[in-house]
């Protein structure tokens, strides 16, 4: 079934919408507390250097300064989810421009900034690692001289500047390649890019005795809490993280960042402390940059265009520290293998330290760049085989029952239907002027399983609450939870208020990350609401003198099946319950387990080679290239997605539109550039060109809804990241058709397109 128009029943208005559009919504930077101080950081002055002198006295003695902290003032803890290579404050060595050396709290932001600037730091310069490929050379300078002594998660394979190596092997790729009729190799280089949420992060911390409350603009409050606990040595029940309205994240606010710094300042100053990032800080400091990447691929085909073998090597710029990037190697390897049937495969990826800002999950980490490289390569393969690119994909993509590159066999999947829908909507194959073309790319993305909890309660007056650990970052996913609870209880979504984004109130959830809110927390809410439904049925059964199994909950009423006259309102039952057994449910539905892999072997296996409830997509993008200037305009995008059942049509379409726009930006105008020292040259909105509304093309969306056995509630898979995966790739394939060959760098700026047109791109 293909649904293109939102079903009327699923049109509901987000509860946070009016607050946001009228400006009355309060974000972290809007909050204040009596006696609040303002924080500022002193950042590294060099991108790689050993601190030889650090004198904070000039800051400490400044009137209005109440606290100055350095590494000496906090516990000596190295942390990091995959490799424990990071400290709150630089210890001895600084490794990138945004590294925090000291923190100041003062009576005004101006004083805090002046004090931070007055701190004296001297460095002995260390060799700068600025080139991710050179960093893998045996004699390359080390970003972490002590790398071998760091703790790391079990599966992580490390060697010097290589912080995480992964490979996926199946069959015998070399032998199969030797026998192939056509062998083609390509190389692609993607620049780093940014999540660029509209709200720069803000944190406010206040201690009461030995407990701290931290208001933070984070996508992952429980992760942030864990970071505070680990670095400051506190138990989880003494740290409370509250997230006010979040002004977007796109992954940029995942992970634990500066909450501990602000909490430590507040403790030292004995006053509440507030930190608000500037746009420049938002660009330079967080360990959440979308990783730059070098991709080399070789694929062997039979004469008929069937893929027989692939080898690939991905080099990922990790930056100076390993945030959640530890899983990037295996995920990138999966994405250069792609959703194709490949009998013989060997792909490997290295996550390499440099003196750049650390990389971390930005919407579909590794996927848009890897997909861009793979799908450009795929169009080259199609040309080599003399096949139309769409026909080539139809012959080679995975389908229901086929075995994927890592040895996973897929249940019901809709990739081919995505290809059909997107190409049909785009009018693929129609005649176009010489300077226009339609490019097509396919993508995939896993659904992430994780523990997740929620409470559901109905109070004595019949009004209901969902208390959930889930975090809303603007996707509407948390809002959609109300619909699930309402359906379970025969109530309306409007009957539910949400209590969320507070770690001391709600059970654990991974946060607004990995497209997992509906997938995992949805299950928890259904589970919790189901418990309340059972209670209601028992109460109703008593009241109506029927068997609990015969009670039906619908339209706010409990009635006896087949006898609609015997009915009692849920509100009345809630009133009865208020005098005795309260209506409370709690849920943390068991996550589906990982599918089996057969016939493949993985090095550095962090569980990313087996895709739970995989999501598939195909984008077909119509572009126009100005051959004289290289300027590319996107005229239309057709996006088809298999994300299982779509529960909230409006929210889902918003995710696809946003993902496509982000993909266009990555494809054409964004991209971080570095100077010789590894500093960002364009950490500002003037120089880092995001797409604007005026650039948005018409976006046609098809959801290919098919039953998925291992999916989340009602057959829903994730959706928030998937739309960001194939857009840049599809644009690239359209541009390559007009230009005559691929642009081998991302973003495909006007200048790079022009260089390719004129043969001055330095690649043949």
């Amino acid at each position, binding site marked *: 079934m293909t649904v293109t128009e939102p079903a009327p029943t699923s049109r509901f208005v987000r509860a946070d919408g009016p607050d946001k559009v009228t400006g009355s919504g309060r974000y972290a930077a809007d909050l204040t507390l009596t006696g609040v101080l303002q924080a500022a950081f002193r950042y590294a002055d060099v991108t790689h250097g050993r601190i030889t002198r650090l004198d904070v006295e000039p800051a400490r003695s400044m009137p209005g300064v109440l606290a100055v902290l350095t590494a000496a003032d906090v516990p000596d803890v190295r942390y990091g989810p995959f490799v424990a290579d990071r400290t709150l404050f630089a210890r001895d060595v600084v490794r990138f421009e945004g590294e925090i050396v000291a923190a100041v709290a003062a009576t005004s932001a101006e004083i805090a900034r002046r004090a931070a600037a007055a701190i004296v730091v001297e460095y002995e310069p260390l060799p700068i690692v600025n080139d991710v490929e050179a960093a893998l050379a045996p004699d390359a300078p080390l970003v972490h001289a002590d790398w071998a002594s760091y703790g790391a998660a079990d599966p992580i394979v490390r060697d010097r500047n290589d912080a995480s190596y992964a490979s996926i092997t199946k069959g015998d790729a070399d032998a199969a390649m030797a026998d192939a009729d056509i062998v083609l190799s390509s190389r692609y280089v993607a620049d780093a890019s940014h999540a660029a949420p509209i709200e720069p992060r803000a944190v406010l911390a206040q201690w009461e005795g030995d407990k701290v409350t931290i208001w933070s603009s984070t996508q992952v409050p429980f992760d942030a809490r864990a970071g505070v606990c680990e670095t400051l040595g506190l138990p989880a029940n003494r740290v409370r993280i509250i997230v006010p309205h979040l002004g977007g994240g796109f992954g940029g606010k995942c992970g634990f960042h500066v909450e501990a710094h602000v909490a430590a300042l507040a403790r030292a100053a004995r006053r509440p402390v507030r930190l608000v990032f500037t746009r420049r800080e938002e660009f330079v400091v967080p360990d959440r940059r979308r990783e730059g990447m070098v991709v080399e691929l070789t694929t062997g085909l039979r004469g008929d265009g069937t893929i027989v073998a692939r080898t690939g090597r991905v080099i990922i710029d990790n930056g100076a520290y390993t945030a959640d990037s530890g899983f990037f190697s295996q995920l990138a390897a999966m994405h250069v293998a792609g959703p194709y049937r490949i009998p013989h495969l060997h792909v490997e990826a290295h996550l390499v330290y440099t003196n750049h800002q650390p990389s971390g999950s930005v919407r579909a980490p590794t996927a848009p760049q890897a997909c861009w490289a793979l799908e450009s390569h795929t169009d080259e393969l199609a040309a080599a085989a003399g096949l139309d690119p769409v026909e080539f994909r139809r012959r080679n993509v995975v389908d229901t029952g086929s075995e994927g590159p890592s040895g996973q066999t897929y249940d019901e999947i809709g990739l081919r239907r995505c290809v059909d829908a997107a190409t049909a909507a785009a009018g693929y194959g129609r005649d176009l002027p010489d300077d226009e073309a339609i490019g097509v790319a396919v993508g995939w993305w896993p659904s992430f399983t994780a523990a997740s909890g929620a409470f559901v309660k109905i109070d004595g007056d019949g009004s209901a609450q969902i208390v959930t650990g889930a975090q809303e970052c603007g996707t509407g996913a948390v809002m959609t939870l109300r619909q699930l609870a309402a359906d379970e209880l025969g109530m309306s979504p409007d009957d539910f208020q949400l209590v969320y984004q507070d770690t001391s109130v709600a059970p654990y959830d991974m946060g607004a990350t990995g497209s997992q809110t509906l997938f995992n927390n949805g299950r928890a809410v259904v589970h919790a609401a189901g418990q309340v439904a059972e209670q209601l049925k028992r109460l109703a059964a008593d009241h109506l003198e029927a068997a609990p199994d015969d009670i039906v909950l619908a339209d706010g009423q409990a009635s006896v099946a087949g006898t609609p006259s015997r009915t009692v309102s849920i509100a009345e039952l809630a009133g009865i319950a208020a005098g005795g057994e309260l209506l409370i449910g709690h849920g943390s539905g068991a996550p589906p387990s990982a599918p089996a892999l057969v016939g493949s072997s993985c090095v550095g296996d962090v569980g990313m080679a087996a895709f739970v409830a995989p999501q598939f997509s195909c984008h077909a993008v119509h572009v126009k290239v100005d051959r*004289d200037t290289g*300027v590319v305009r996107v005229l239309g995008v057709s996006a088809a997605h298999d994300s299982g059942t779509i529960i909230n049509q409006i929210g889902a379409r918003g995710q696809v539109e946003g993902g496509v726009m982000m993909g266009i930006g990555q494809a054409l*105008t964004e991209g971080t*550039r570095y100077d010789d020292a590894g500093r960002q040259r364009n950490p500002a909105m003037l120089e880092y060109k995001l797409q604007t*509304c*005026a650039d948005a093309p018409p976006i046609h969306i098809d959801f290919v809804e098919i039953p998925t056995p291992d999916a989340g509630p009602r057959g829903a898979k994730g959706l928030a990241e998937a739309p960001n995966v194939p857009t840049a790739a599809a644009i690239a394939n359209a541009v390559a058709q007009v230009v005559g060959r691929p642009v081998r760098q991302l973003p495909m700026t006007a200048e790079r397109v*022009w260089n390719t047109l004129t043969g001055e791109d330095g690649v043949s």
Partner: protein
Amino acid sequence: MSVTVAHTLDEALELLAATPSATVLAGGTDLMVELNMGHRRTDAVVCVNRVGELRSWRHDPGTDTLRIGAAITYAELMDAPLAGFSPALAQAARTVGSPQIRNAATIGGNVGTASPAGDGLPVLRALDAVVHLASTAGTRDVPFAEFATGPKRTVVQPGELITGVTIPVLNGFQGYSKVGVRNAMVIATASACLAVDTNGHTVRLALGSVGPVILRAPEAETIAVQAADFEAGTIDPEAIPAFAAAAAAAARPIDDHRSTAAYRRRAIEVLSRRLLTRAFPAPTPGASS
């Protein structure tokens, strides 16, 4: 920091005379950014965008010139009646920033900032505009060509105010084009303004973002004048590549984080060729093609 809002020209000039180090604030779309980024400091601000004399414009039918007050905004320039007097200035105005920016940003501020990428400036340069300056000591007129002395450097003296610019109202094609990487809020990688004076038989080409100040391309202009039939509105098509090449040769671009010199020069060639083709859409009858 003191901020004073002037309501008359005399009041503004008195304030500037009293505090020659004061900074003039018009729409603030350049100044506030510079202050916020700490690129500029000031102790005193004189706000001029409510000064009636600067908020007005006047067409002089005798000389057929248009005097535009310094505090006229881009939003005003892009619509009737002003757009009718200078189509190129209206086109340039439409490419500036976003609606919010165009409602605040003034032509005087664009001139005052004197960025090589200022969108209004190639038009003023092509039209040989005159910049009017005033202080309590008197007024002076400076040809736009002599106004900027380098990137963001001008001849404006402490205590002096830009009161407006005067441009001729020309009979003939005017066009402004820029190469930028997206459809809104984009700083020009390279820009060009072409203005044809059908009565005076001149073709003027000014180039932005490809030099320390806005440049003219005199050799290209000569090529165009020689190849054009102003009465018929036609041009020898063979002259068009030569015109574009001469325009590119006149550019003095640099490599920076936004673009390379080579690409900017190329962009000037393309923009110039397209503007000239738009100005003279039909080839000269009988000319070889």
